[in-house]
């Protein structure tokens, strides 16, 4: 049955997350935007103490996504600072064995806060992940990693500030192309791995974005995720890539949920301001009689809703164990672009209130933009959608 009713658990999750971010995150949101690379230690400690309440626990189901929307309504940069295995965890989930799940994720709720990270992008490749040059060479019971990874979200927190880990994508056989691409878990403190620099960014400044160097970095053989074998298949096939792709199918709707949270923050701000000014949006009035402002708001709200429903559908399909590659990319492409436009429009509509750093709206516009870039740019996701609907391989549609 088609149904949009939230379960009591989901309603409660949204409410408690909303209250928590209003109390803990919004008050320090501006500070950490203006003090890039300064650690929000107090906030992290507070969140860590509250971890048993479940508010800040992440998953990749609808309930988590609804909570993540609220958390990012609070602050998308600080959201990324919440301890947990994050994207690294998603990769382990997608292609790790039971033993690996236990070994890498088992202690994440114990001891001190830890973070997980994912390292795919290199200076010479971003969206074209098949062009990865980092190498993993087998040496007896070990893998030896070499290469440079950039734009690793929370890389420093995972590797320098905690006993976390990073999942690294590297090739075990360059001649095998995609089939040679494998992912490896590298725990914090492994010799031969170092955080080289932190990016200064447009937005989500509270989160670190690290460059990580692997210089003869040795990890145990059993830290490889998925099969170590390289199946040489037809060039157009993408079997060896399944791990990364499966990860994206799970993480893209979550990033879309993050985007939706930021977009809603901006929308709420605009609507509250209009309410104070006693301006009502006449939803049921014919369009040709609406003001430009009303038309803009209706367009923003409709696009926001469209993005949210596409996201919920992608997550729902995953919960039904249906393949959701197409729908995950649809949600990510739509949400990333929609909130980019919504927040930019919101700044325009609010005029002097929008552009001023006295309010958070300008920050949300800067924060929102990342959602159209990380976990696959809007364009890469459009390419995936296009290939899917046309039933084209990557050779047929480049």
């Amino acid at each position, binding site marked *: 049955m088609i149904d949009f009713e939230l379960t009591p658990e989901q309603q409660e999750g949204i409410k408690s997350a909303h209250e928590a971010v209003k109390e803990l995150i919004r008050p320090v949101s501006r500070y950490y935007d203006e003090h890039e690379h300064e650690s929000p230690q107090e906030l992290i400690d507070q969140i860590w103490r509250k971890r048993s309440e479940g508010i800040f626990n992440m998953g990749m189901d609808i309930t988590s996504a609804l909570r993540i929307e609220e958390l990012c309504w609070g602050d998308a940069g600080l959201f990324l600072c919440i301890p947990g295995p994050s994207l690294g965890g998603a990769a382990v989930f997608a292609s790790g064995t039971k033993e690996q799940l236990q070994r890498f994720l088992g202690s994440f709720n114990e001891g001190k806060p830890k973070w997980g990270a994912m390292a795919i992008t290199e200076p010479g490749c971003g969206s074209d992940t098949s062009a990865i040059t980092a190498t993993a060479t087998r040496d007896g019971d070990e893998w030896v990693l070499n290469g440079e990874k950039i734009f690793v979200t929370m890389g420093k927190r995972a590797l320098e500030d905690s006993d976390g880990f990073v999942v690294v994508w590297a090739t075990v056989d360059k001649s095998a192309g995609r089939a040679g691409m494998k992912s490896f878990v590298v725990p914090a403190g492994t010799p031969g791995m170092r955080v080289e620099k932190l990016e200064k960014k447009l937005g989500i400044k509270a989160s670190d974005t690290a460059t990580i160097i692997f210089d003869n970095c040795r990890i145990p053989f059993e830290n490889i995720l998925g099969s170590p074998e390289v199946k040489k298949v037809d060039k157009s096939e993408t079997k060896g890539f399944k791990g990364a792709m499966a990860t994206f199918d799970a993480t893209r709707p979550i990033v879309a949920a993050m985007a939706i949270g930021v977009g809603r923050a901006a929308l709420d701000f605009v609507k509250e301001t209009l309410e104070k000014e006693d301006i009502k949006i006449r939803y049921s009035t014919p369009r040709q009689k609406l003001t430009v402002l009303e038309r803009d708001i209706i367009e923003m709200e409709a696009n926001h809703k469209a993005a949210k429903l596409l996201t919920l559908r992608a997550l729902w399909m995953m919960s039904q164990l249906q393949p959701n590659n197409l729908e995950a990319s649809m949600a990510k492409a739509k949400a990333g672009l929609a909130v980019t436009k919504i927040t930019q429009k919101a700044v325009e509509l609010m005029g002097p209130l929008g552009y001023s750093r006295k309010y958070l709206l300008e920050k949300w516009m800067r924060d929102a933009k990342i959602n159209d870039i990380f976990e696959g740019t809007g364009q890469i996701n459009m390419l995936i959608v296009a290939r899917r609907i046309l039933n*084209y391989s990557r050779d047929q549609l480049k």
Partner: protein
Amino acid sequence: MISFNPTEEQQMIISMAKQFANDEMRKIYRECDESGEIPASVIDTAWKMGLISSSIPEDYGGSGGEHSAITGSLISEELAWGDLSMTMHILCPALFAYPVLEMGTETQKKKYLPLVCDEKYKAATAALIEPHFGFDPYSLSTTARPESNGYVLNGEKCYVPLAAEADLFIIYATENGSSQAFIVEKGTKGLEVGEREKNMGIKALATYELSLQNCRVPKENQLGGQNGYDFDRIMNCSRVALSSMATGVAKAAFEYSRDYAKERVAFGEPIASRQAIAFMLAEMAIEIDATRLMNWEAAWRLDRREDATKEASLVKAYADDMVIMITDRAVQIMGGHGYVREHPVELWLRNGRGFVTFDGMAIV
């Protein structure tokens, strides 16, 4: 709990409607558009599916199924994929039946609902839109003046589907600033059906101007009796119906232009293998899905009897833009071939442009 799965029963109805759209409507839609006529046999075949009577209780002559906006929305999308004119013709009696079913007095239901549950298709319709600039369904120029035993209606209407053959009408009018609806039977003095209209699209659907000149209706014909009725709900049901039809039309245009783009070779490759074309198609696919999901949500609210004004208005605004974007692109992707009447996309573009105007011309 959030779910995007139609029920098994809904899936059966969807596949029935889909089959009809494909086997019957798609065979003749061009001829119908050119001639302005829809063969009665096709309408009768559709009527036998019981799309409207199945949601009317047995007490009133129906087969007693549940009246659901979601189901209506699913049906409307499938049929509109086949052809919009025929869909609006087939579902036209709902314009009369559903407001009576949901808001009519017991007497009104008993008297009128059996008439739209007949084995044979019988036209019944509703008149909302008025022929002037700045038309707003919430401030109608058509007036209802109370008198001792009823009302006197005066005003001009347009885009009234099937007015010439309809036996029953709902006329929307303003009484002292508040919206009212009246059941008017064919032949009532002062109710005059004008010329058939000539429109840019939906050319196979017969629509008419309607004139009300001191048209007297007894007070028991006021929809819902003295308590009146819920005009917002009617508008929202109309928004949902039209949004789902817009989704169907857009889907037709998307599929056709997608298939064309895979066949059409330019510079040695199918044009679909160029991002300029492929990305247009990708965006079309995303927006169709987005509209459908928004529409389901609005319909779901209607089925729960909650206020759906915001959701229905948002999806209608979104669908109006979506369908014109998509049908236009379908023409664009096909270039000159899209512009000629040998292919259907120009027809879908003409039909698609109408949705923003059609408020009140369909209902779930």
